[in-house]
């Protein structure tokens, strides 16, 4: 087939003009590399968030109420003091609610003699363990009497336990939190790092009452986790919770909620929305960068054709039609574009791995960028190759051999 021969001549042309070939691939390479990296980051963030959801201990029958207006993880104000233990008690009284876990949360230094580390300290109630279903490997969980006595007792996650005690048995030992001694009464089972690098074991739990009077010196709650009797009751329970809290907080009909919900579905929806926004940005960025890549190819090809006028003339003398020349140069631009695409995907993958390896950004590799780049590169090669190719084909053979 004649067209295969043109393809062969195109390959030869690229091989003989290695310098130009390399320059032409650069633009597309950079475009495709950035596309690959952006797709990988987008997917990485999605994986990380999904991971986070899985590790927040949400069962399908539970949701969280966080103090402060806003959406999901983003509070509009940090100092909302309206959510109290009474709210938690009122919620527990609702018929569809099985458990509530009122919580305070603070990041603190935790110290054992000369060893110290920073960890997330939660003030919780004994129901926390039931709500999470998290087993103990040693000692006991916080009890009601610990709560009543505002006892300075702490249950450690595996990470602070390892950092503070280096393999020693921590049960019965004392650790310091804000210059007060707490007795370690229990050790949580280790869950291990999630794929995205989030450490669920990096936590310490103390009685909520102790947290209120000794650590935070606040009487309001940071969040309440609500567990319903069965998953289908989540939506109606959320609505009732909203009404109870609004009444308790004396919010007028016009006032906005001063709390927000986090549900697995809510997070998913949020992820999907952010992903769509990210995708729109991605399409814009890659369109621009690939456009630039295409223009680079077109310009270098035009220059290259000027250098190769004689070659074109020789081919025409020995029987090449205009269409042969057109196809040869079109193949060259498509091949160069695909080559740039392959190199770009390679570079993008390397960058993505680097970002992940050195903890800069979470990335996740999917097959998407490969397909995308193949399609894009072919299109770019065709669109930006047609003008130079036609120009080459319409050179007069008589003049081109005289040049």
């Amino acid at each position, binding site marked *: 087939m004649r067209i295969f*021969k043109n393809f062969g*001549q195109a390959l030869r042309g690229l091989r*003989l003009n290695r310098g130009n070939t390399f320059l032409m691939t650069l633009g597309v390479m950079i475009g495709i590399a950035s596309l690959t990296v952006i797709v990988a980051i987008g997917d990485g963030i999605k994986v990380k968030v999904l991971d986070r959801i899985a590790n927040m201990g949400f069962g399908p029958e539970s949701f969280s109420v966080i103090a402060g207006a806003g959406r999901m993880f983003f509070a509009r104000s940090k100092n909302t003091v309206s959510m109290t233990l009474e709210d938690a008690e009122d919620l527990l009284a609702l018929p569809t609610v099985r458990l509530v876990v009122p919580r305070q949360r603070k990041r603190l230094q935790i110290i054992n003699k000369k060893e110290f580390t920073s960890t997330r300290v939660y003030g919780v109630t004994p129901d926390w363990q039931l709500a999470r279903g998290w087993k103990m490997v040693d000692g006991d969980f916080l009890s009601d009497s610990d709560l009543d006595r505002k006892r300075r007792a702490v249950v450690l996650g595996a990470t602070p336990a390892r950092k503070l005690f280096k393999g020693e048995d921590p049960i019965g030992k004392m650790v310091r939190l804000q210059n007060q001694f707490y007795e370690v009464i229990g050790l949580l089972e280790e869950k291990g790092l999630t794929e995205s690098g989030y450490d669920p074991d990096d936590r310490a739990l103390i009685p909520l009452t102790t947290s209120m009077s000794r650590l935070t010196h606040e009487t309001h709650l940071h969040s309440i986790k609500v567990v319903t009797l069965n998953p289908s009751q989540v939506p109606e329970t959320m609505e009732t919770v909203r009404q109870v809290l609004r009444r308790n907080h004396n919010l007028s009909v016009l006032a906005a909620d001063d709390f927000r919900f986090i549900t697995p579905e809510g997070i998913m929806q949020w992820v999907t929305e952010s992903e769509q926004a990210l995708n729109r940005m991605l399409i814009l960025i890659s369109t621009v960068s690939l456009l630039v890549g295409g223009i680079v190819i077109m310009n270098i090809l035009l220059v290259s054709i000027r250098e190769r006028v004689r070659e074109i003339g020789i081919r*025409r003398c*020995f029987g090449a039609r*205009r269409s*042969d020349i057109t196809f040869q140069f079109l193949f060259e631009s498509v091949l160069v574009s695909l080559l740039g695409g392959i190199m770009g995907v390679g570079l993008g993958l390397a960058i993505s791995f680097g970002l992940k390896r050195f903890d800069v950004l979470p990335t996740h590799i999917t097959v998407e960028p490969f397909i995308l780049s193949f399609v894009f590169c072919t299109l770019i090669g065709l669109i930006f190759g047609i003008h130079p190719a036609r120009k080459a084909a319409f050179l*007069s053979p*008589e003049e081109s*051999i005289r040049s």
Partner: protein
Amino acid sequence: MNLIEMNSICKSYRNIGFETRVLEDVTLHIKEGDYVSIMGPSGAGKSTLMAIMGCLSQPTSGEYILDGEEVGQLNDRKLSRVRNEKIGFVFQAFHLLPGVTALENVILPLVYAKRPPGNIKEKARELLAKVGMEHRLHHTPGQLSGGEQQRVTIARSLINNPRIILADEPTGNLDSKNGRETMKTFDNLVKEGKTIVLITHDLEVAKHAGRIVSIRDGQIASDHEEKTFSL
């Protein structure tokens, strides 16, 4: 029978505003097996005449019948095919594809042939052997001397088994020894029945041909059979 029949060929180039007439009313008939030299000072229109003869460009007016076919008004596709099948070019500057081996350069016309023979490489090797280049099959033009390059060019012009060989100053870039070699090759090709049209301004070279056509100012100034040439 006339292989080439040019009747009242005119060629003019239009440049912004004014027209340059390069060929004016040229009538030239060449029979199959003829050995013709076209002579003339530079700017006389030799190259333009050769371009038209070789179907690289088309006359502005007049009639050009090549091998019984009017080619003056053919479209690009058909004209390319005529070039491919009926004409072999030999150039002063060789015009080999740079970076490509001698063997592949010789094969080039077959890339664009409608029905290429099966044993392409075999045929190319044979032709290179015929011009004494069998030891340089895989050398690129840059690795060959001028004489060697011209021999590759001749092999290339023969690979499609054309009826006509058009040679534009074939000895212009060669030393006298290689020039004589080249002319000997042409003389032999005529004996094999090829029609050869030589364009030159070297009278010694022109004398190899049996017929010398002189061109001056776009017109044929003289056209005579050389008695000195003998087969």
